[in-house]
């Protein structure tokens, strides 16, 4: 369970997040939506201790962010940030292999190699395994990054706009994998999505943010409505219900 209590964050004097309170139960896919600049990335960065917490408190299971040993947390929670600067000269297999570092600390075992192979297989990267990252397309590179996060094999997975650069096949396949992780392995997945339709189709729960605050939390049916989209995104697309799933007409 991730519990965020009275979390506020400032950069300089500008308030970025204000009094965030949020509880995410174990197991399930939570989609984080909101306009650009709402503070979604900042919230994920704080949960994943990429940025030190200023005020408030975050706990993941019995680990308190900022107080627990960082290498223990690395075996519990993984994040794929929105902007990634990849080191040069890495092959896809080497990059995915880093996902196992929290367990082997530089000395991979047979089990680690097997998990890397499985991650490569899952994201259809096996044919590209020995290619250098800089020789791949943006979407292929993104898939390799997601595979590394997958190989980290943690109970909690935070993904910041992972569908960037992915084509429809890769996007749907990633979302299906995430659903499966949540359903059959009771993993907790928090994912920032820009495409509301993906959120409505694949998430158990949607959290909507605006100007550094959470404005609504609930099931896709409750959140994806004309009124809420108008309120959060300041635009008025039409929402349809198709086979029980909400769909936004763009």
């Amino acid at each position: 369970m991730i519990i965020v209590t009275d979390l506020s964050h400032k950069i300089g004097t500008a308030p970025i997040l204000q009094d965030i309170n949020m509880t995410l139960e174990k197991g399930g896919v939570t989609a984080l939506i909101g306009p650009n600049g709402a503070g979604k990335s900042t919230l994920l960065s704080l949960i994943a201790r990429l940025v030190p917490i200023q005020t408030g408190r975050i706990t993941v299971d019995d680990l308190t962010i900022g107080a627990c040993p960082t290498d223990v947390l690395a075996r519990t929670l993984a994040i794929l940030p929105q902007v990634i600067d990849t080191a040069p000269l890495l092959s896809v297999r080497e990059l995915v292999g880093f996902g196992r570092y929290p367990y082997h600390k530089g000395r991979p075992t047979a089990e680690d190699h097997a998990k890397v192979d499985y991650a490569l297989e899952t994201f259809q990267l096996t044919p590209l395994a020995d290619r250098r990252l800089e020789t791949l397309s943006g979407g292929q590179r993104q898939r390799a990054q997601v595979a590394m996060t997958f190989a980290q094999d943690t109970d909690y997975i935070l993904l910041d706009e992972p569908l960037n650069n992915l084509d429809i096949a890769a996007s749907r396949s990633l979302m299906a994998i995430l659903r499966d992780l949540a359903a059959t392995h009771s993993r907790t997945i928090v994912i920032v999505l820009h495409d509301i339709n993906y959120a409505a189709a694949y998430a158990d729960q949607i959290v909507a943010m605006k100007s550094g605050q959470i404005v609504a939390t609930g099931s896709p049916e409750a959140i994806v409505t004309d009124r809420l989209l108008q309120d959060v995104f300041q635009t008025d697309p039409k929402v349809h219900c198709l086979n029980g799933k909400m769909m936004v007409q763009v």
Partner: protein
Amino acid sequence: MHSKRLCLLALFLGGCIAGYLLLGARGNWAFVLPFRGNKLIALLLVAIAVSTATVLFQTITQNRILTPAIMGFDALYVLIVTILVYLLGGQVFLQLPAVGQFVFNTTLMLVAALALFGSLLTRARGDLMRMILTGIIFAVLFRAITDFLQRMIDPNEYAVIQISSYARFARIEVELLAIASVLTCAALIATWRMRHRLDVLALGPDAAINLGENPQRGMFQALIIIAVLVSVSTALVGPMAFMGLLVVSLAHMITPTASHAVLLPSAALISAITLVGGQFVLERVLGLSTPLIVVVDVVGGGVFLILLMRGKRR
């Protein structure tokens, strides 16, 4: 593939060492060999210290253009020696035991490097131009203060500074060599034990944190090792502006890999070949008295310009 190349480099270095020790030795071997042996050890220490410090620095700053020398680390060491001579007087300074003197200089260097570069590297991370500018300003500033102090010191004492910071292989004290070897070995062991963590740190701070490494801590540990290694190399041969850049760029070409377990030995071997082989060719084959450092710096400076022009940061 990489291990084969490392073996070839090691063989080549062996050849250079043999040539350097044995070729053109006339007369009394019992005299020539220890003399050349000491010089050889100094060359090897400097070579490995420079390449390792450069690899560490490039990893924690995540770029392939900046080196400790370009950022003014060497100049800082010379400045510290100058300040000490100025404050204590050359005679007092010389009377300090060589080992004590060296350890003292290195400690001061450590403190100064952490104070000056620790916060810079945290704040300017990712901003290559700001780092280059700050580095150049640091280097110029350190040299200007050094120059100023040296003008105020009388010429006899000035010679003390030259002896203790620009030895240029002319006069190598066995005692200094021993302490330099001990420090270098300690720094190398620490670096080797960090090699897997360095691989992770090279991915960038966010990725490192996600994998459970503390980038801040890694950076400070690396800075400490760099300060020790720069002290050793500067005390033995004086500042070398572009040597580190040259040998590490070559290492990236000959063994292109992100793994520090390969990159560190590869850069060290290439660096040793450059110094020992270069010294051998200049001294024994061409019979020139041009200091090797001058040649290395001219070539390395060219590489720096090319890298800068091509805008190849990583």
